[in-house]
């Protein structure tokens, strides 16, 4: 039964927002998850044959997502809310 190896975690900022990057290897695949630190919900995941490959893809995707985060403005009467 495989065991996770090369576990690492670190924090950084993307587009001004703090993120938390966790990577580990299971078998021959590296898994990277980036979360938003508070509350820690994952925002992107990526896999790769190397740690660098997994993390660079995840960071690229997370950067694009975090650039879209808005700080609150006076709301309009018909704010578009995904899922509603």
């Amino acid at each position, binding site marked *: 039964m495989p065991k996770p190896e090369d576990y690492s975690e670190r924090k950084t900022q993307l587009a001004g927002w703090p993120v938390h990057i966790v990577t580990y290897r299971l078998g021959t695949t590296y898994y990277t*998850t980036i979360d938003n630190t508070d509350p820690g919900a994952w925002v992107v*995941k990526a896999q790769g044959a190397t740690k660098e490959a997994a993390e660079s893809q995840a960071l690229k995707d*997370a950067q694009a997502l975090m650039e879209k985060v808005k700080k609150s403005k006076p709301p309009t009467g018909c704010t578009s809310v995904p899922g509603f």
Partner: protein
Amino acid sequence: MATQTSQATTKSAVLVSTDWVAQHLSDPAIRIVEVDVDTKAYGEGHVPNAVGWAWDTQLCDTLRRDIIPKAKFEQLMAESGIGTATPVILYGDNNNWFAAWAFWQLKVYGHKDVRLMDGGRKKWIAEGRELTTEVPKPARASYKAQEPDTSIRAFLPEVMKASSARAAQLVDVRSPQEFSGEILAPPGLPETCQRGGHVPGAANIPWAKACNDDGTFKGVEELRALYGGAGITGKQPVIAYCRIGERSSHTWFVLKHLLGYSNVKNYDGSWTEWGNLVAAPVEKP
């Protein structure tokens, strides 16, 4: 109404260590269940013999907004090989965030023996413990749930009263930026409310302050200082809320089961209910 702080639950009654779980992987008397915010994580590898529950499809009513209905809960438990007396060991990612959500729902339906694996999935992986992608197929059990325990669940009218008459202490466990209304949702997540801010009178104690860096819960004295320092001592009823009720179930667990506060409720309607109400009072610092 004032309430008394009951004897704090011993940690051993509601928490087990990763070591303990590693020693009980094949114990037929218990059932290990993984519940993650990241519903794909279980499929990538999980604790051997653990079943996986998806919070967004299996731990909720998929028609109306509500927790899992009683009949569906009984079915889930039975299909997971969990009998009424089976000890359930829950764990999950992100400090047991959604494992605590599951814990709360199991308590709503009266399951007696539920525990969290302290540190959750993060600690298990960081310790380099075995993972498998093999999904167990437990023999179906028989399960009869209790009627929902509303003493641990708050609905809107009670929260309104708590806010307007200070009938209970409100604890907003979201981030300071959500509490202040600077953002409407955590970065990267959908904005599901029309207004930002918080319920008037609420104290802001972010949920993850209850955890250490390795995902385990802080010690009782540290927790008592954290909440007591904000005036949340258990001498008055407490209602915890967040955005959709899952972070606050974690805080509910801490207050109710680690600190032993006797009257603690989780308001699962939370900010996605309050922040969408027409004419509801909103406080912004």
